[in-house]
């Protein structure tokens, strides 16, 4: 299970200590990627959200309680559990940058990838999407609307990557060496706290280069060897401890 090597590796570094759980990233994601609103969104196991903000607790009783919020996009794993299982190559990790693609027009909706993903990053269209009358006018032209019966997930706003590359080409720059900030995801852009940082982890000029190498940076379920491209940063040990399953006697990093 060797992860593919990429010259450019887009990663997200999410500072959990800076996230206050406001939800702006989730709304921005929906609007950017043309997710349909739902009347009753309280059955969370059926609600499509490419990005979900989880609530973490240190499990101490009042007044020693501490809280943290963890935004969870698709991890864009270096060794994605979902890609090899797809029978129709509707999801792949091939393009420079290491984003796990999702080709919804090819997806047959078998949901095997969802079973494979321990992060619950993949969502199924249980019904056809529907917008209140007129609201379809707010659909962005960048991301196709998906019909029922297919699986979808966060793409790190891949269309923005394409736009950034196009822009670089037009301006005569190397599209494989974008500047920090040329390409950011909608959630990273929206976050008022700057909790989400996006960039090329292989490029020392990008902020994520240092952040991913921070002593406080951990990835979710690292020991399952999915090699995620999302780093979480927290100075709180209890938070880092909840990013992976630890046996009682095990020490946490950082």
């Amino acid at each position, binding site marked *: 299970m060797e992860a593919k090597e990429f010259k450019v590796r887009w990663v997200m570094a999410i500072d959990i200590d800076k996230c206050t759980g406001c939800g702006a990233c989730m709304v921005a994601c929906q609007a950017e990627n043309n997710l349909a609103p739902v009347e009753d*969104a309280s059955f969370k196991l059926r609600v499509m959200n490419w990005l979900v903000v989880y*609530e973490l607790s240190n499990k101490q009783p*009042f007044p020693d309680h501490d809280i943290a919020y963890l935004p969870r996009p698709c991890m864009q794993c270096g060794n994605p559990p979902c890609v090899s299982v797809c029978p129709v190559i509707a999801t792949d990790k091939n393009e420079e940058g290491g984003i796990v693609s999702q080709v919804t027009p090819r997806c047959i909706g078998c949901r095997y990838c969802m079973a494979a993903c321990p992060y619950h990053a993949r969502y199924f269209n249980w019904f056809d999407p529907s917008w209140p009358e007129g*609201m379809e006018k707010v659909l*962005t032209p960048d*991301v196709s609307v998906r019909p029922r019966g297919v699986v979808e997930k966060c793409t790190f706003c891949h269309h923005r990557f394409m736009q950034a590359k196009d822009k670089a080409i037009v301006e005569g720059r190397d599209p494989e060496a974008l500047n920090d900030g040329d390409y950011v995801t909608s959630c990273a852009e929206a976050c008022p706290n700057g909790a989400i940082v996006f960039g090329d982890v292989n490029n020392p000029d990008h902020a994520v280069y240092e952040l991913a190498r921070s002593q406080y940076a951990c990835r979710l379920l690292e020991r399952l060897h999915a090699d995620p491209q999302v780093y979480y940063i927290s100075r709180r040990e209890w938070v880092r401890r909840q990013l992976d399953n630890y046996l009682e006697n095990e020490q946490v990093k950082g």
Partner: protein
Amino acid sequence: MAVDRRGFLKFVTGVSAGIMVTPVPWVLLDDLSIWTQNWPWIPSNVDGPNTFVSTVSKLCPSCVGMKVRLVGDRPVRILPDDNHPLSKGGISALAVAEAQMLHSPARVRRPLKRSGDGAYVAISWEEADALLAEKLGSAKGSLACVSGDETGTINEVLSAFTARAGSQNFYLMPSEIQPAAKALAAMGGEGQFGYDIENSDYVLAIGANILESWGTAIRNRAAFKDAHPHGQEPTVPYVYVGAVQGNTAAGADKWIAIKPGTEGAFALGLAHLLIKSGASSYASDFSAFASLAAGYTPEKVAELTGASADGIKALAAELQKARRPLVITGSEFGQGTPVGTVAAGMAVNLLLGGLNRPGGVKLLPVAAPVVDSALSRAQMMEKDFVAYLSRINAGKEKAPEAMLFYEANPAYGLPQADKMAEVLAQVPFKATFTTFLDETAMLCDLVLPVPMGLERLDDVATPYGSGSALYCLARPVAPMPANVRPAADYILGLAGKLGYSLGFGKWEDVLKAKAQAMGANWKSLMAGDVFVSTETVGASLSFGADLIAKSLTAKTAEGDFALAPVHKLNMGTAKTAIPPYNNKTIRRWELQGSEIYVAMNGATARKLNVSKHDKVVVSNKSGSIVARVNVFEGIMSDTVAVLMGLGHTAFDQFSKGKGENVMQLLTVGFEPGSGQSVWAMAGVNISKA
């Protein structure tokens, strides 16, 4: 030529085989796969040229700046604006959904009139004009007007109109700004409190939800962002003191739990310690204040607030050590704050030398009104709508003949909302200028649709919480629907028809005059720039010791448990309800189906003998709600936290019928001293359902 059976079969076989070797079957299969993505009922994307327009949100209470992305003439995205001082590259969970709300099912798209049987019928603007002119004409001298816009110059138009109609009853919907303005007045100051959070080196929020809903929240969060380099010690510590470990506490470096409504006492506890270690002031009533504060020893404050005495001492020591500390007081849910609480917080700032210094509290200039006979900002702040309704309810004042609402939803958003709606029912004629069919619209005889902030020309002048006086314009970026009319222009026209001279015929001229009064350049404003003034108003403030002392004598709330409403911007406001795209941000154990969850800590749950998911009745003399229990340890003991923004009975399928409105449980009281209506300290009883 005759075709026999055998020949026919051969032909069919031949054709079939022939087709199979052509690309036809494969093309058909391919088409089939394409058809499966292109069902006619699934909307498809429409491309067009992209443009970006900078403007400001009139929907979000944080007045966040934003960049609207248009594709052709359609706004498709609300993006943060790096250059706007109230955005600084961030956006709120509410404003980011604003483009979608242009097409909200709850939008009112044509004037509606309530018919005899209570149903609403669409009417033309001409009919609406005639009805309004007639009713307002006959209500002359007995008109009241309520505005839900805190920062717009339209309040001058509305208040001037009300004045010309022979009435002084112009009100703003209650928020944090009124108690703050009254506190400032009581302390002998002028202008408006400004909070220089960016330049502070220690930020202490007592009650005020500075990282979620208090003041210019997105700007506050930009300061928080800069103060918290990734994976490093914060350069500026943020401390939150409040009953609930909400979003502000989640970001803050330290959370100190206190009982709801004890913010003032907590501030006095800090003042006590600061004075004890030598803090002093030249203010005229310093000695009065010092003797008041002397009673608030850490032990006493610990008893009153539920915080630990050591924690209070440590906090005071940290404040003293800081060079540019800033203390911000407010209510956890952005309203109902006693004036004395704000004054007590200000007193701590004064003791810390924080007045008009960088990183402290500034007194910002407020421009004089530009519309003839409009109320000044200070006068508007004096007016207390809840007190007014209470007087009507008590029979101390006659209900007005007519009431106008402008983007205000008192029937949902006021404490004891049902009671308030009953009082409103005593008003014979009510009309509302509104974007959405809200609870108040459902009480009105006439509903007049107005454009959203994205469709109209409007302004924002120095929102409460801002660190400097500023002025900017909301510019129309989206085409206005055919049958909505901008309220300001409409009222100017109506004033003309009724013979009330307001001195302006066009809204744009009012704004131009306002810009000039603020000292801003119109052209630059229209280009999307924000006018920011560094001016402050000089003053030597007193402590308002007398006011604080009286305020703190307020009775403690009835009931065995304290109520802590939780305000989050993703839930929308009383004016917007829950935006369609924000439904998904409601947390799992905040709402399930139509059932609201209320939160309490484990000790409280054990005391009540309830566990997670149990049904309880939360009640007091104002009302009661049925809810399920969520056990969450980040809450003060004997306190129940209830999310605001649920329990709508109007709007659309995304808001209506979901949970309960916590406002039903908030009991209005009147603050001794200021007489201000307050409801930050509600008590409830909880029993198993």
